[in-house]
Protein backbone atom coordinates (compact mmCIF):
# COMPACT_ATOMS: atom_id res chain seq x y z
CA UNK A 1 0.00 0.00 0.00
CA UNK A 2 1.56 3.27 -1.04
CA UNK A 3 1.46 6.35 1.13
CA UNK A 4 3.02 9.02 -1.03
CA UNK A 5 2.23 11.64 1.63
CA UNK A 6 5.31 10.43 3.51
CA UNK A 7 8.82 10.62 2.01
CA UNK A 8 10.07 8.01 4.45
CA UNK A 9 7.08 5.82 3.65
CA UNK A 10 7.91 6.00 -0.04
CA UNK A 11 11.55 5.08 0.57
CA UNK A 12 10.55 2.13 2.72
CA UNK A 13 7.96 1.07 0.16
CA UNK A 14 10.57 1.13 -2.64
CA UNK A 15 12.85 -1.08 -0.56
CA UNK A 16 9.96 -3.44 0.15
CA UNK A 17 9.37 -3.79 -3.56
CA UNK A 18 13.08 -4.43 -4.18
CA UNK A 19 13.07 -7.09 -1.45
CA UNK A 20 9.99 -8.76 -2.96
CA UNK A 21 11.76 -8.81 -6.34
CA UNK A 22 14.72 -10.55 -4.73
CA UNK A 23 12.43 -13.03 -2.98
CA UNK A 24 10.72 -13.76 -6.29
CA UNK A 25 14.07 -14.62 -7.89
CA UNK A 26 14.85 -16.81 -4.90
CA UNK A 27 11.46 -18.51 -5.14
CA UNK A 28 12.02 -19.19 -8.84
CA UNK A 29 15.34 -20.81 -7.98
CA UNK A 30 13.66 -23.00 -5.34
CA UNK A 31 10.87 -23.94 -7.75
CA UNK A 32 13.35 -25.03 -10.43
CA UNK A 33 15.55 -26.99 -8.04
CA UNK A 34 13.75 -29.08 -5.43
CA UNK A 35 15.21 -29.63 -1.97
CA UNK A 36 16.66 -33.01 -2.98
CA UNK A 37 18.69 -31.95 -6.01
CA UNK A 38 21.39 -29.34 -5.50
CA UNK A 39 21.85 -26.91 -8.41
CA UNK A 40 25.01 -26.51 -10.47
CA UNK A 41 26.97 -23.63 -8.99
CA UNK A 42 28.75 -23.07 -12.32
CA UNK A 43 25.45 -21.89 -13.84
CA UNK A 44 25.77 -18.08 -14.15
CA UNK A 45 22.06 -17.52 -13.51
CA UNK A 46 22.21 -19.47 -10.24
CA UNK A 47 25.38 -17.68 -9.19
CA UNK A 48 23.74 -14.32 -9.87
CA UNK A 49 20.66 -15.20 -7.78
CA UNK A 50 22.78 -16.46 -4.90
CA UNK A 51 25.14 -13.50 -4.97
CA UNK A 52 22.25 -11.02 -5.12
CA UNK A 53 20.62 -12.86 -2.23
CA UNK A 54 23.78 -12.83 -0.16
CA UNK A 55 24.46 -9.14 -0.84
CA UNK A 56 20.90 -8.09 -0.11
CA UNK A 57 20.59 -10.10 3.08
CA UNK A 58 23.95 -8.95 4.39
CA UNK A 59 23.51 -5.30 3.59
CA UNK A 60 19.99 -4.18 2.74
CA UNK A 61 17.86 -6.07 5.24
CA UNK A 62 20.06 -5.24 8.21
CA UNK A 63 20.20 -1.57 7.07
CA UNK A 64 16.42 -1.43 6.60
CA UNK A 65 15.67 -3.17 9.90
CA UNK A 66 18.31 -1.11 11.69
CA UNK A 67 16.79 2.16 10.49
CA UNK A 68 13.35 1.09 11.61
CA UNK A 69 14.49 -0.11 15.01
CA UNK A 70 16.83 2.79 15.72
CA UNK A 71 14.85 5.69 14.35
CA UNK A 72 11.30 4.83 13.38
CA UNK A 73 9.94 2.44 16.00
CA UNK A 74 10.95 4.57 19.01
CA UNK A 75 9.30 7.59 17.42
CA UNK A 76 6.09 5.71 16.63
CA UNK A 77 6.09 4.04 20.06
CA UNK A 78 6.21 7.51 21.60
CA UNK A 79 3.22 8.43 19.44
CA UNK A 80 1.25 5.55 20.95
CA UNK A 81 1.94 2.83 18.37
CA UNK A 82 3.63 0.56 20.92
CA UNK A 83 1.89 -2.72 20.07
CA UNK A 84 2.61 -2.43 16.37
CA UNK A 85 6.27 -1.57 16.82
CA UNK A 86 6.82 -4.48 19.21
CA UNK A 87 5.11 -6.83 16.78
CA UNK A 88 7.28 -5.67 13.90
CA UNK A 89 10.43 -5.85 16.07
CA UNK A 90 9.54 -9.45 17.02
CA UNK A 91 9.23 -10.25 13.31
CA UNK A 92 12.65 -8.69 12.64
CA UNK A 93 14.07 -10.92 15.38
CA UNK A 94 12.58 -13.96 13.65
CA UNK A 95 13.74 -12.97 10.15
CA UNK A 96 17.32 -11.89 10.86
CA UNK A 97 18.80 -15.25 12.02
CA UNK A 98 17.22 -16.98 9.00
CA UNK A 99 18.65 -14.29 6.70
CA UNK A 100 22.12 -14.65 8.28
CA UNK A 101 22.10 -18.44 7.79
CA UNK A 102 20.99 -18.13 4.17
CA UNK A 103 23.62 -15.50 3.42
CA UNK A 104 26.30 -17.73 5.00
CA UNK A 105 25.30 -20.82 2.99
CA UNK A 106 25.12 -18.75 -0.22
CA UNK A 107 28.56 -17.23 0.48
CA UNK A 108 30.16 -20.63 1.14
CA UNK A 109 28.57 -22.18 -1.94
CA UNK A 110 29.66 -19.33 -4.19
CA UNK A 111 33.22 -19.48 -2.84
CA UNK A 112 33.43 -23.27 -3.24
CA UNK A 113 31.62 -23.32 -6.65
CA UNK A 114 29.58 -26.20 -5.29
CA UNK A 115 27.01 -27.00 -2.61
CA UNK A 116 26.53 -30.27 -0.76
CA UNK A 117 23.08 -31.92 -0.82
CA UNK A 118 22.78 -31.32 2.95
CA UNK A 119 23.60 -27.62 2.64
CA UNK A 120 21.23 -27.22 -0.30
CA UNK A 121 18.42 -28.92 1.66
CA UNK A 122 19.05 -26.54 4.55
CA UNK A 123 19.23 -23.57 2.19
CA UNK A 124 15.95 -24.64 0.55
CA UNK A 125 14.11 -24.89 3.86
CA UNK A 126 15.49 -21.63 5.22
CA UNK A 127 14.81 -19.75 1.98
CA UNK A 128 11.19 -20.91 1.97
CA UNK A 129 10.82 -19.70 5.54
CA UNK A 130 12.47 -16.38 4.70
CA UNK A 131 10.20 -15.82 1.68
CA UNK A 132 7.08 -16.38 3.75
CA UNK A 133 8.21 -14.40 6.79
CA UNK A 134 9.43 -11.45 4.71
CA UNK A 135 6.31 -11.35 2.52
CA UNK A 136 4.07 -11.41 5.60
CA UNK A 137 6.21 -8.80 7.34
CA UNK A 138 6.12 -6.50 4.33
CA UNK A 139 2.34 -6.90 4.13
CA UNK A 140 2.07 -5.71 7.74
CA UNK A 141 4.48 -2.83 7.27
CA UNK A 142 2.74 -1.67 4.10
CA UNK A 143 -0.62 -1.76 5.83
CA UNK A 144 0.27 -0.62 9.36
CA UNK A 145 3.65 1.08 9.51
CA UNK A 146 3.33 3.20 6.39
CA UNK A 147 -0.21 4.23 7.33
CA UNK A 148 1.03 5.30 10.77
CA UNK A 149 3.91 7.24 9.21
CA UNK A 150 1.58 9.11 6.88
CA UNK A 151 -0.93 9.83 9.61
CA UNK A 152 1.20 10.58 12.66
CA UNK A 153 4.58 11.93 11.59
CA UNK A 154 4.68 15.61 10.59
CA UNK A 155 6.42 16.82 7.43
CA UNK A 156 9.54 18.13 9.22
CA UNK A 157 10.11 14.90 11.12
CA UNK A 158 9.38 12.91 7.99
CA UNK A 159 12.02 14.86 6.04
CA UNK A 160 14.54 14.30 8.87
CA UNK A 161 13.87 10.55 8.87
CA UNK A 162 14.11 10.38 5.08
CA UNK A 163 17.50 12.15 5.18
CA UNK A 164 18.79 9.69 7.78
CA UNK A 165 17.53 6.72 5.76
CA UNK A 166 19.16 7.96 2.55
CA UNK A 167 22.45 8.50 4.38
CA UNK A 168 22.67 4.94 5.73
Amino acid at each position, binding site marked *: *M*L*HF*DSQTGRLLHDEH*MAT*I*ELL*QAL*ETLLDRHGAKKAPDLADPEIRLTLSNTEASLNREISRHFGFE*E*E*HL*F*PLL*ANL*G*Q*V*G*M*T*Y*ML*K*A*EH*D*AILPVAVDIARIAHDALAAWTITPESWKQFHELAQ*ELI*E*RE*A*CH*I*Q*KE*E*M*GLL*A*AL*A*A*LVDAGEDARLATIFRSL
Partner: protein
Amino acid sequence: MSLAFSPSMAAGSLDRLLPAAIPFRFFASAITFNIAAWLVLALSRDPVAGHLGGKGAVVAALHLMTLGVLAMAAMGAGYQLLPMATARPVRSVRGSATSFWLASPGVALFTGGLAVGVDAATHAGAALVAAGLTLFAMLTADNLRGAAAMPLVRRHVQVALVSLIATIVLGLILLVDWERGFLPDHLAAAGAHAAVAAYGFMGMLVLGFSTILVPMLALAQAPDRRLGQWVLALAAAGLVLTLLGGLAGVPLAMAGGAVLGLAAALLHITAMTRVIKRRMKKQLGPSFLLIRAGWCLLVASLMLAAALSLDLVPSPWATLLGVLLVPGWLLTSLFGFLQRIMPILAQAHLTVPGARPPLVSALTPEMPLKIHGMAHLAAVAVLTVAVVVGSEWLVRVAAVLGLVAALSFAVFAAILYRRALVCRRGG
Protein backbone atom coordinates in the same frame (compact mmCIF):
# COMPACT_ATOMS: atom_id res chain seq x y z
CA MET B 1 17.44 6.02 20.56
CA SER B 2 16.79 2.29 20.22
CA LEU B 3 13.68 0.30 20.97
CA ALA B 4 14.62 -1.50 24.14
CA PHE B 5 12.22 -4.26 25.15
CA SER B 6 10.07 -3.36 28.08
CA PRO B 7 7.26 -5.79 28.96
CA SER B 8 5.46 -3.10 30.93
CA MET B 9 5.38 -0.92 27.85
CA ALA B 10 4.00 -3.67 25.67
CA ALA B 11 1.43 -4.91 28.13
CA GLY B 12 -1.94 -3.37 27.53
CA SER B 13 -0.60 -1.24 24.74
CA LEU B 14 -2.01 -3.03 21.78
CA ASP B 15 -2.98 0.32 20.23
CA ARG B 16 -4.54 -0.42 16.86
CA LEU B 17 -4.60 -4.21 17.30
CA LEU B 18 -7.69 -5.03 19.34
CA PRO B 19 -7.70 -7.96 21.77
CA ALA B 20 -7.98 -11.10 19.63
CA ALA B 21 -11.31 -12.05 21.22
CA ILE B 22 -13.06 -9.03 19.68
CA PRO B 23 -12.61 -9.66 15.92
CA PHE B 24 -12.51 -13.45 16.24
CA ARG B 25 -15.75 -13.52 18.25
CA PHE B 26 -17.46 -11.74 15.35
CA PHE B 27 -15.85 -14.09 12.82
CA ALA B 28 -16.88 -17.18 14.82
CA SER B 29 -20.42 -15.86 14.95
CA ALA B 30 -20.44 -15.22 11.18
CA ILE B 31 -19.17 -18.75 10.52
CA THR B 32 -21.88 -20.22 12.76
CA PHE B 33 -24.64 -18.16 11.13
CA ASN B 34 -23.35 -19.25 7.71
CA ILE B 35 -23.96 -22.89 8.69
CA ALA B 36 -27.38 -21.97 10.08
CA ALA B 37 -28.35 -20.08 6.90
CA TRP B 38 -27.69 -22.97 4.53
CA LEU B 39 -29.21 -25.45 7.01
CA VAL B 40 -32.43 -23.43 7.23
CA LEU B 41 -32.54 -23.22 3.42
CA ALA B 42 -31.98 -26.98 3.13
CA LEU B 43 -34.69 -27.84 5.66
CA SER B 44 -37.20 -25.19 4.60
CA ARG B 45 -40.41 -26.30 2.92
CA ASP B 46 -41.17 -22.79 1.67
CA PRO B 47 -40.64 -22.28 -2.07
CA VAL B 48 -37.52 -20.27 -2.88
CA ALA B 49 -37.92 -19.71 -6.62
CA GLY B 50 -40.02 -16.62 -7.18
CA HIS B 51 -39.93 -15.73 -3.46
CA LEU B 52 -40.59 -12.02 -3.03
CA GLY B 53 -40.23 -11.37 0.67
CA GLY B 54 -42.52 -11.67 3.66
CA LYS B 55 -41.85 -13.87 6.69
CA GLY B 56 -40.82 -17.51 6.90
CA ALA B 57 -37.77 -19.71 6.60
CA VAL B 58 -36.50 -18.32 3.28
CA VAL B 59 -36.41 -14.74 4.60
CA ALA B 60 -34.85 -16.07 7.81
CA ALA B 61 -32.10 -17.78 5.76
CA LEU B 62 -31.55 -14.55 3.81
CA HIS B 63 -31.18 -12.52 7.02
CA LEU B 64 -28.90 -15.17 8.54
CA MET B 65 -26.65 -14.49 5.55
CA THR B 66 -26.96 -10.69 5.57
CA LEU B 67 -27.13 -9.85 9.28
CA GLY B 68 -25.59 -13.05 10.60
CA VAL B 69 -22.69 -13.59 8.23
CA LEU B 70 -22.07 -10.34 6.38
CA ALA B 71 -22.83 -7.78 9.08
CA MET B 72 -21.07 -9.75 11.84
CA ALA B 73 -17.95 -10.27 9.70
CA ALA B 74 -18.07 -6.62 8.62
CA MET B 75 -18.18 -5.50 12.25
CA GLY B 76 -15.26 -7.75 13.25
CA ALA B 77 -13.18 -6.75 10.23
CA GLY B 78 -14.20 -3.10 10.52
CA TYR B 79 -13.16 -2.84 14.17
CA GLN B 80 -9.79 -4.38 13.30
CA LEU B 81 -9.00 -2.99 9.84
CA LEU B 82 -10.27 0.55 10.10
CA PRO B 83 -7.89 1.54 12.93
CA MET B 84 -5.09 0.29 10.67
CA ALA B 85 -6.25 2.69 7.97
CA THR B 86 -6.92 5.66 10.24
CA ALA B 87 -3.93 5.02 12.57
CA ARG B 88 -6.31 5.58 15.49
CA PRO B 89 -7.43 2.95 17.98
CA VAL B 90 -11.11 2.12 18.53
CA ARG B 91 -12.29 4.49 21.25
CA SER B 92 -13.93 1.82 23.40
CA VAL B 93 -12.96 -1.85 23.38
CA ARG B 94 -15.85 -2.47 25.78
CA GLY B 95 -18.20 -0.73 23.36
CA SER B 96 -17.11 -2.97 20.50
CA ALA B 97 -17.61 -6.03 22.73
CA THR B 98 -21.05 -4.75 23.71
CA SER B 99 -22.04 -4.35 20.07
CA PHE B 100 -21.29 -8.05 19.62
CA TRP B 101 -23.37 -9.08 22.64
CA LEU B 102 -26.26 -7.04 21.29
CA ALA B 103 -26.05 -8.00 17.63
CA SER B 104 -25.16 -11.69 17.75
CA PRO B 105 -27.98 -12.90 20.05
CA GLY B 106 -30.19 -10.37 18.26
CA VAL B 107 -29.59 -12.06 14.90
CA ALA B 108 -30.39 -15.48 16.41
CA LEU B 109 -33.60 -14.17 17.96
CA PHE B 110 -34.68 -12.19 14.89
CA THR B 111 -34.07 -14.96 12.35
CA GLY B 112 -35.44 -17.62 14.70
CA GLY B 113 -38.60 -15.54 15.10
CA LEU B 114 -38.90 -15.14 11.33
CA ALA B 115 -38.39 -18.85 10.69
CA VAL B 116 -40.93 -20.15 13.23
CA GLY B 117 -43.30 -17.19 13.06
CA VAL B 118 -42.97 -15.80 16.59
CA ASP B 119 -43.38 -12.03 16.20
CA ALA B 120 -42.24 -11.16 19.73
CA ALA B 121 -38.90 -12.87 19.10
CA THR B 122 -38.58 -11.17 15.70
CA HIS B 123 -39.23 -7.73 17.21
CA ALA B 124 -36.93 -8.24 20.20
CA GLY B 125 -34.21 -9.60 17.93
CA ALA B 126 -34.57 -6.68 15.51
CA ALA B 127 -34.25 -4.20 18.39
CA LEU B 128 -31.08 -5.90 19.65
CA VAL B 129 -29.53 -6.07 16.17
CA ALA B 130 -30.41 -2.42 15.50
CA ALA B 131 -28.80 -1.42 18.82
CA GLY B 132 -25.65 -3.45 18.10
CA LEU B 133 -25.30 -2.09 14.57
CA THR B 134 -25.94 1.49 15.72
CA LEU B 135 -23.22 1.15 18.35
CA PHE B 136 -20.89 -0.17 15.65
CA ALA B 137 -21.80 2.79 13.42
CA MET B 138 -21.12 5.25 16.27
CA LEU B 139 -17.73 3.74 17.16
CA THR B 140 -16.71 3.58 13.52
CA ALA B 141 -17.82 7.15 12.84
CA ASP B 142 -15.83 8.23 15.89
CA ASN B 143 -12.75 6.41 14.59
CA LEU B 144 -13.07 8.18 11.23
CA ARG B 145 -13.46 11.61 12.82
CA GLY B 146 -10.28 13.65 12.48
CA ALA B 147 -8.35 10.85 10.78
CA ALA B 148 -6.22 12.04 7.90
CA ALA B 149 -4.85 8.83 6.41
CA MET B 150 -6.39 6.90 3.52
CA PRO B 151 -9.13 9.37 2.57
CA LEU B 152 -10.64 7.09 -0.07
CA VAL B 153 -11.19 4.22 2.36
CA ARG B 154 -12.63 6.60 4.93
CA ARG B 155 -15.14 8.03 2.45
CA HIS B 156 -16.25 4.57 1.38
CA VAL B 157 -16.80 3.67 5.03
CA GLN B 158 -18.69 6.93 5.62
CA VAL B 159 -21.11 6.08 2.78
CA ALA B 160 -21.41 2.55 4.19
CA LEU B 161 -22.32 3.94 7.61
CA VAL B 162 -24.98 6.27 6.20
CA SER B 163 -26.35 3.28 4.27
CA LEU B 164 -26.29 1.20 7.45
CA ILE B 165 -28.40 3.74 9.30
CA ALA B 166 -30.82 3.90 6.33
CA THR B 167 -30.95 0.08 6.30
CA ILE B 168 -31.74 -0.08 10.01
CA VAL B 169 -34.46 2.60 9.80
CA LEU B 170 -36.06 1.02 6.71
CA GLY B 171 -35.84 -2.45 8.26
CA LEU B 172 -37.60 -1.33 11.43
CA ILE B 173 -40.29 0.50 9.35
CA LEU B 174 -40.86 -2.67 7.31
CA LEU B 175 -41.19 -4.70 10.49
CA VAL B 176 -43.86 -2.38 11.88
CA ASP B 177 -45.56 -2.22 8.48
CA TRP B 178 -46.10 -5.99 8.52
CA GLU B 179 -48.58 -5.44 11.38
CA ARG B 180 -49.90 -1.95 10.70
CA GLY B 181 -49.77 -1.86 6.87
CA PHE B 182 -49.21 1.90 6.49
CA LEU B 183 -46.67 1.82 3.64
CA PRO B 184 -48.18 2.42 0.16
CA ASP B 185 -45.88 -0.18 -1.40
CA HIS B 186 -44.30 -2.60 1.07
CA LEU B 187 -42.49 -4.51 -1.68
CA ALA B 188 -40.85 -1.37 -3.13
CA ALA B 189 -39.71 -0.31 0.34
CA ALA B 190 -38.35 -3.83 0.93
CA GLY B 191 -36.46 -3.52 -2.36
CA ALA B 192 -34.96 -0.20 -1.28
CA HIS B 193 -34.02 -1.74 2.10
CA ALA B 194 -32.31 -4.67 0.35
CA ALA B 195 -30.48 -2.43 -2.14
CA VAL B 196 -29.18 -0.04 0.52
CA ALA B 197 -28.17 -2.90 2.81
CA ALA B 198 -26.40 -4.94 0.14
CA TYR B 199 -24.93 -2.34 -2.23
CA GLY B 200 -24.76 0.48 0.32
CA PHE B 201 -23.63 -0.89 3.66
CA MET B 202 -21.89 -4.12 2.68
CA GLY B 203 -21.01 -3.13 -0.86
CA MET B 204 -19.27 0.10 0.06
CA LEU B 205 -17.32 -1.70 2.79
CA VAL B 206 -16.23 -4.35 0.30
CA LEU B 207 -15.22 -1.71 -2.29
CA GLY B 208 -13.42 0.44 0.29
CA PHE B 209 -11.55 -2.32 2.09
CA SER B 210 -10.65 -3.93 -1.26
CA THR B 211 -8.48 -0.90 -1.98
CA ILE B 212 -6.36 -1.84 1.06
CA LEU B 213 -6.69 -5.62 1.11
CA VAL B 214 -6.15 -6.48 -2.56
CA PRO B 215 -2.80 -4.59 -2.78
CA MET B 216 -1.79 -5.95 0.63
CA LEU B 217 -2.57 -9.57 -0.19
CA ALA B 218 -1.15 -9.38 -3.71
CA LEU B 219 1.83 -7.26 -2.61
CA ALA B 220 1.14 -4.55 -5.13
CA GLN B 221 0.85 -0.80 -5.38
CA ALA B 222 -2.36 0.89 -4.30
CA PRO B 223 -5.06 1.39 -6.94
CA ASP B 224 -5.30 4.60 -8.93
CA ARG B 225 -6.67 7.20 -6.51
CA ARG B 226 -8.59 9.11 -9.21
CA LEU B 227 -10.26 5.94 -10.41
CA GLY B 228 -11.20 5.21 -6.81
CA GLN B 229 -12.79 8.65 -6.47
CA TRP B 230 -14.90 7.96 -9.56
CA VAL B 231 -15.96 4.58 -8.15
CA LEU B 232 -17.02 6.25 -4.92
CA ALA B 233 -18.91 9.08 -6.62
CA LEU B 234 -20.74 6.82 -9.07
CA ALA B 235 -21.61 4.24 -6.41
CA ALA B 236 -22.87 6.88 -3.98
CA ALA B 237 -24.96 8.57 -6.69
CA GLY B 238 -26.35 5.19 -7.73
CA LEU B 239 -27.31 4.42 -4.15
CA VAL B 240 -29.15 7.72 -3.67
CA LEU B 241 -31.01 7.27 -6.95
CA THR B 242 -31.97 3.68 -6.08
CA LEU B 243 -33.15 4.63 -2.61
CA LEU B 244 -35.23 7.58 -3.79
CA GLY B 245 -36.58 5.64 -6.76
CA GLY B 246 -37.54 2.73 -4.54
CA LEU B 247 -39.28 4.87 -1.94
CA ALA B 248 -41.06 7.07 -4.49
CA GLY B 249 -41.92 4.15 -6.77
CA VAL B 250 -40.06 5.49 -9.82
CA PRO B 251 -38.63 2.46 -11.70
CA LEU B 252 -36.59 4.60 -14.10
CA ALA B 253 -34.70 6.13 -11.19
CA MET B 254 -33.98 2.67 -9.80
CA ALA B 255 -32.74 1.54 -13.21
CA GLY B 256 -30.56 4.67 -13.39
CA GLY B 257 -29.18 3.81 -9.96
CA ALA B 258 -28.31 0.30 -11.14
CA VAL B 259 -26.58 1.67 -14.26
CA LEU B 260 -24.50 4.08 -12.16
CA GLY B 261 -23.69 1.18 -9.82
CA LEU B 262 -22.67 -0.90 -12.82
CA ALA B 263 -20.32 1.85 -14.01
CA ALA B 264 -18.82 2.03 -10.51
CA ALA B 265 -18.43 -1.75 -10.38
CA LEU B 266 -16.71 -1.91 -13.76
CA LEU B 267 -14.31 0.89 -12.80
CA HIS B 268 -13.60 -0.84 -9.47
CA ILE B 269 -12.86 -4.12 -11.24
CA THR B 270 -10.61 -2.28 -13.73
CA ALA B 271 -8.69 -0.68 -10.86
CA MET B 272 -8.33 -3.97 -8.99
CA THR B 273 -7.31 -5.86 -12.12
CA ARG B 274 -4.56 -3.30 -12.73
CA VAL B 275 -3.38 -3.76 -9.13
CA ILE B 276 -3.28 -7.53 -9.55
CA LYS B 277 -1.48 -7.30 -12.89
CA ARG B 278 1.31 -5.29 -11.26
CA ARG B 279 1.55 -7.55 -8.22
CA MET B 280 4.81 -8.82 -6.78
CA LYS B 281 3.31 -12.00 -5.35
CA LYS B 282 3.09 -14.66 -8.05
CA GLN B 283 0.73 -17.18 -6.46
CA LEU B 284 -2.47 -15.56 -5.26
CA GLY B 285 -4.12 -18.81 -4.16
CA PRO B 286 -7.78 -19.88 -4.08
CA SER B 287 -8.91 -16.77 -2.19
CA PHE B 288 -8.52 -14.68 -5.33
CA LEU B 289 -10.61 -17.16 -7.30
CA LEU B 290 -13.45 -16.28 -4.92
CA ILE B 291 -12.71 -12.56 -5.07
CA ARG B 292 -12.72 -12.60 -8.89
CA ALA B 293 -15.90 -14.71 -8.99
CA GLY B 294 -17.43 -12.12 -6.67
CA TRP B 295 -16.70 -9.36 -9.20
CA CYS B 296 -18.48 -11.29 -11.98
CA LEU B 297 -21.48 -11.84 -9.71
CA LEU B 298 -21.56 -8.13 -8.76
CA VAL B 299 -21.74 -7.12 -12.43
CA ALA B 300 -24.41 -9.76 -13.14
CA SER B 301 -26.48 -8.58 -10.16
CA LEU B 302 -26.41 -4.94 -11.29
CA MET B 303 -27.37 -5.84 -14.87
CA LEU B 304 -30.29 -7.86 -13.54
CA ALA B 305 -31.27 -5.06 -11.13
CA ALA B 306 -31.49 -2.62 -14.06
CA ALA B 307 -33.50 -5.11 -16.13
CA LEU B 308 -35.88 -5.78 -13.22
CA SER B 309 -36.45 -2.05 -12.67
CA LEU B 310 -37.42 -1.62 -16.33
CA ASP B 311 -39.65 -4.73 -16.32
CA LEU B 312 -37.45 -6.34 -18.94
CA VAL B 313 -37.52 -9.62 -17.00
CA PRO B 314 -40.40 -11.13 -14.98
CA SER B 315 -40.63 -9.97 -11.36
CA PRO B 316 -40.05 -13.45 -9.82
CA TRP B 317 -36.48 -13.03 -11.07
CA ALA B 318 -36.01 -10.68 -8.13
CA THR B 319 -35.15 -13.86 -6.24
CA LEU B 320 -32.31 -14.39 -8.70
CA LEU B 321 -31.07 -10.88 -7.91
CA GLY B 322 -30.98 -11.88 -4.24
CA VAL B 323 -28.96 -15.00 -5.12
CA LEU B 324 -26.45 -13.13 -7.28
CA LEU B 325 -26.11 -10.42 -4.67
CA VAL B 326 -26.01 -12.14 -1.27
CA PRO B 327 -24.56 -15.67 -1.51
CA GLY B 328 -23.14 -14.58 -4.88
CA TRP B 329 -21.14 -11.36 -4.77
CA LEU B 330 -21.09 -10.60 -1.05
CA LEU B 331 -20.58 -14.00 0.61
CA THR B 332 -18.14 -15.12 -2.09
CA SER B 333 -16.02 -11.97 -1.72
CA LEU B 334 -16.25 -12.04 2.07
CA PHE B 335 -14.97 -15.60 2.37
CA GLY B 336 -12.26 -14.87 -0.20
CA PHE B 337 -10.91 -12.12 2.05
CA LEU B 338 -11.68 -13.82 5.38
CA GLN B 339 -9.69 -16.96 4.57
CA ARG B 340 -6.58 -14.77 4.17
CA ILE B 341 -7.24 -12.22 6.91
CA MET B 342 -7.92 -14.70 9.71
CA PRO B 343 -4.51 -16.48 9.65
CA ILE B 344 -2.63 -13.17 9.24
CA LEU B 345 -4.54 -11.70 12.16
CA ALA B 346 -3.99 -14.82 14.27
CA GLN B 347 -0.26 -14.66 13.52
CA ALA B 348 -0.18 -10.96 14.45
CA HIS B 349 -1.73 -11.78 17.83
CA LEU B 350 0.84 -14.54 18.38
CA THR B 351 3.75 -12.22 17.58
CA VAL B 352 4.99 -11.02 20.94
CA PRO B 353 8.44 -9.89 22.07
CA GLY B 354 10.75 -12.75 22.89
CA ALA B 355 8.70 -15.42 21.08
CA ARG B 356 9.28 -16.72 17.57
CA PRO B 357 6.17 -15.89 15.52
CA PRO B 358 4.59 -18.86 13.74
CA LEU B 359 4.47 -18.97 9.96
CA VAL B 360 1.07 -18.08 8.49
CA SER B 361 1.25 -21.22 6.35
CA ALA B 362 1.75 -23.32 9.48
CA LEU B 363 -1.47 -21.89 10.92
CA THR B 364 -3.52 -22.28 7.71
CA PRO B 365 -5.11 -25.62 6.84
CA GLU B 366 -5.44 -25.52 3.03
CA MET B 367 -7.68 -28.51 2.34
CA PRO B 368 -10.83 -27.21 4.11
CA LEU B 369 -10.40 -23.94 2.18
CA LYS B 370 -10.23 -25.78 -1.15
CA ILE B 371 -13.39 -27.73 -0.29
CA HIS B 372 -15.09 -24.54 0.87
CA GLY B 373 -14.23 -22.65 -2.32
CA MET B 374 -15.43 -25.39 -4.67
CA ALA B 375 -18.60 -26.17 -2.70
CA HIS B 376 -19.53 -22.49 -2.24
CA LEU B 377 -19.14 -21.66 -5.94
CA ALA B 378 -21.09 -24.82 -6.84
CA ALA B 379 -23.84 -23.82 -4.39
CA VAL B 380 -24.17 -20.36 -5.97
CA ALA B 381 -24.20 -21.84 -9.48
CA VAL B 382 -26.81 -24.50 -8.67
CA LEU B 383 -28.94 -21.97 -6.76
CA THR B 384 -28.84 -19.65 -9.78
CA VAL B 385 -29.99 -22.45 -12.10
CA ALA B 386 -32.62 -23.56 -9.56
CA VAL B 387 -34.17 -20.10 -9.39
CA VAL B 388 -34.08 -19.66 -13.18
CA VAL B 389 -35.77 -23.01 -13.92
CA GLY B 390 -37.95 -22.84 -10.80
CA SER B 391 -36.77 -26.14 -9.34
CA GLU B 392 -37.20 -26.49 -5.57
CA TRP B 393 -35.36 -29.80 -5.72
CA LEU B 394 -32.28 -28.04 -7.11
CA VAL B 395 -32.60 -25.36 -4.43
CA ARG B 396 -32.18 -28.09 -1.77
CA VAL B 397 -29.14 -29.48 -3.66
CA ALA B 398 -27.64 -25.99 -3.65
CA ALA B 399 -28.40 -25.61 0.05
CA VAL B 400 -26.62 -28.90 0.84
CA LEU B 401 -23.60 -27.73 -1.21
CA GLY B 402 -23.68 -24.42 0.67
CA LEU B 403 -23.84 -26.33 3.94
CA VAL B 404 -20.79 -28.40 2.94
CA ALA B 405 -18.96 -25.15 2.16
CA ALA B 406 -20.02 -23.57 5.45
CA LEU B 407 -18.93 -26.63 7.45
CA SER B 408 -15.59 -26.72 5.62
CA PHE B 409 -14.96 -23.10 6.52
CA ALA B 410 -15.85 -23.89 10.13
CA VAL B 411 -13.33 -26.76 10.08
CA PHE B 412 -10.70 -24.34 8.69
CA ALA B 413 -11.44 -21.89 11.51
CA ALA B 414 -11.39 -24.63 14.19
CA ILE B 415 -8.01 -25.97 13.01
CA LEU B 416 -6.62 -22.42 12.83
CA TYR B 417 -7.82 -21.77 16.38
CA ARG B 418 -6.33 -25.04 17.67
CA ARG B 419 -2.97 -24.36 15.99
CA ALA B 420 -2.95 -20.82 17.39
CA LEU B 421 -3.59 -22.17 20.88
CA VAL B 422 -0.73 -24.66 20.53
CA CYS B 423 1.57 -21.80 19.45
CA ARG B 424 0.45 -19.63 22.33
CA ARG B 425 1.28 -22.42 24.76
CA GLY B 426 4.73 -22.59 23.19
CA GLY B 427 4.16 -25.82 21.20
